[in-house]
């Protein structure tokens, strides 16, 4: 036991290198998922953020930026410990993350109760958009339902009579189908929930073929999406329009390739967005990381730009939290998606587009904007938020 005690002491000394943040420096703690299959999403966020900081000369708002990246392993209790480490050991001024909503649920309270701001570059759940909104919590992506609403609206406008809905059986999956149904008033041919992590969709595909709906809507992130899209094409079902969210994006397209071409999605941005800052970003990202950026990277880049603008507006004084909060809320930066402003609940108000998968001239795949579906669209939960 004596020996193990000395081991513990040594471990403790190693685990707490810490130190207060020095003057003229801003510390960013980033918590994203970097293990398991979803690691690719966490990687995009890390890289998108790093690209912005590099462009700003290693500074944010004129202060030297020190970025600590930790992996939440997609385990909520581990995420809480990691976040406490960022706050107490590394004394970060901003926590950027996470990728997934269940991690957000776990870390929102510890971060917002501390002296740091929490900025989510991806997860944006409805509870924190409504009653439980928080002055120290900002979202630079969107409220989760909105992307599904885009596709529901499109299906409705297009006059589809019936839709077949398919999602994994977990909270985000159920929310996705609800979001779609909020806008789509046609007949629901069938609503199928698959176990999380299901690999083979042939049973569901046969059902789709039997039901003959006007359109299929699905939410099938990560590897599940890769499998579904390939199998959908192999089953010869591509005559039925395939509407999906987080199923075909730049993180999955390298694996889906031709099978996904023509599939429709909803997003707040696509790599072919026609503005100079976006074009420069896509080119720089591809040069640096050899992959086409998805919205994850775009939102992380915007997050860095938001922090940069806020520190600048607040005069570089990180200790003045109220000034910093007001500056963040202004959202006074040049977003890659063009227009960007925060609603009262600190979720964005922005445009949403219908996107379509295309093969580029250089052989790579990306989503491209087809049409704008919502303009300056805020989420419907903001009215429940007590913030003004």
């Amino acid at each position, binding site marked *: 036991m004596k020996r193990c005690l000395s081991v513990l002491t040594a471990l403790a000394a190693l685990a707490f290198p810490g130190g207060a943040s020095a003057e003229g420096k801003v510390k960013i703690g980033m918590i994203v998922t970097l293990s398991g*299959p979803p690691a690719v999403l966490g990687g995009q966020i890390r890289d998108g953020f790093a690209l912005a900081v590099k462009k700003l000369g290693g500074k944010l708002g004129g202060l030297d930026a020190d970025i600590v990246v930790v992996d939440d392993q997609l385990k909520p209790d581990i995420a809480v410990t990691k976040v406490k480490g960022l706050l107490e050991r590394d004394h970060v001024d901003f926590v950027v993350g996470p990728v997934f909503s269940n991690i957000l649920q776990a870390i929102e309270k510890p971060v917002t109760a501390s002296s740091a701001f929490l900025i989510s570059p991806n997860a944006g759940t409805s509870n924190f958009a409504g009653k439980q909104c928080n002055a120290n919590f900002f979202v630079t992506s969107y409220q989760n339902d909105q992307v599904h609403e885009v596709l529901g609206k499109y299906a409705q406008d297009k006059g589809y009579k019936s839709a077949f809905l398919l999602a994994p059986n977990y909270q985000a999956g159920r929310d996705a189908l609800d979001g779609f149904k909020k806008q789509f008033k046609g007949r629901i041919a069938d609503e199928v929930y698959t176990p999380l992590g299901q690999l*083979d969709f*042939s*049973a569901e595909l*046969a059902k789709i073929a039997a039901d003959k709906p006007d359109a299929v809507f699905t939410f099938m992130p*990560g590897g599940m999406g890769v499998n579904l899209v390939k199998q959908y094409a192999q089953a010869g079902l591509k005559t039925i329009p395939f509407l999906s969210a987080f199923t075909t994006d730049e993180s999955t397209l390298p694996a889906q*390739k031709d099978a996904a071409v023509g599939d429709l999605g909803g997003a707040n941005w696509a790599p072919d967005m026609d503005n100079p800052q976006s074009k420069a970003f896509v080119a720089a990202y591809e040069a640096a990381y050899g992959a086409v950026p998805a919205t994850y990277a775009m939102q992380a880049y915007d997050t860095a730009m938001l922090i940069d603008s806020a520190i600048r507006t607040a005069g570089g004084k990180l200790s003045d939290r109220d000034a910093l909060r007001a500056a963040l809320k202004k959202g006074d930066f040049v977003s890659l998606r063009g227009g960007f402003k925060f609603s009262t609940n600190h979720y964005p108000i922005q445009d949403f587009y219908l996107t379509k998968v295309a093969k580029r001239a250089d052989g790579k795949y990306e989503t491209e904007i087809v049409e704008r579906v919502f303009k300056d669209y805020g989420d419907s939960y903001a009215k429940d938020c007590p913030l003004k």
Partner: protein
Amino acid sequence: MALLLVQTLNGLQLGIILFLISAGLTLVFGVMNFVNLAHGAQYMVGAYLAAWLIGLTGNFWLGLALTLPATLAFGLALEALIYRHLYNRDPLDQILATFGLILFIDEGVKTIWGAEPISVDTPAALAGGVALMPGLLYPIYRLALIGAGLAVAALLYLIVNHTRVGMRVRAGASNSAMISALGIDIGRLFLIVFGLGATLAGLAGALVAPILSVEPGMGDSVLILVFVVIVIGGVGSIRGAFLGALLVGLIDTLGRAFGPALLDLAMNPSAASQTGRSLTPMLIYLLMAGVLFVRPSGLFPVKR
């Protein structure tokens, strides 16, 4: 009726994939009494090697042919470095070691090939599909997969039941004390069984690469299904693994396809969809618990 046929075919095909992975593991369990949690990781390595080699050679068949010796070599390397030293040890040490291996291999493939899912194109000769029901093409590759799986099953059956090696393997599975009594070189037999298991796992990984995405951790979820198959079929029994895999494949697929509709008949729709959602993913575990309740050593136990 056509739908039922297609769904049965789907179940069969899932079962065949599960069989290819289970066949090797059930022998490793049965003959060597070795709890190998890393078998799923070896399947994943097979898929990655296939994707890499097919990409490198630009030819599906050549890539597939190269994958088999590569996975065999990988498996034998693991055997020589780690497994060999754990054969007569507490199963808990085996669990600890192979759990550690999963962590290492998952992280390793991510470091080498990246975290993005990668995919393999269907070979041109097997592209396209046949219309088994209106509106749905059944991919020829999947039919070929079922055929290949049945061929492997038949081959294994011949090897295990009609060769000297097979006789020893069977003897080992039913009573490991007996093989040493018969003067058989256990080290060599274990090496053969393990090599066979590793190659089969690698083959399964390579064959599914064109229909499933190849990604880190893909072996972990499959591993649990494979355990279910082995336990239902009876540890150490190829026949059990085959029938267990088909049973799991069919029940899972048909349950997903027709379960909700059946529940709709029995209760009001909203309660049915709630129940269906919770019940479907549990179906095969319920099946397994049921089998264990009635036959605690699986459906086709090897006589001990």
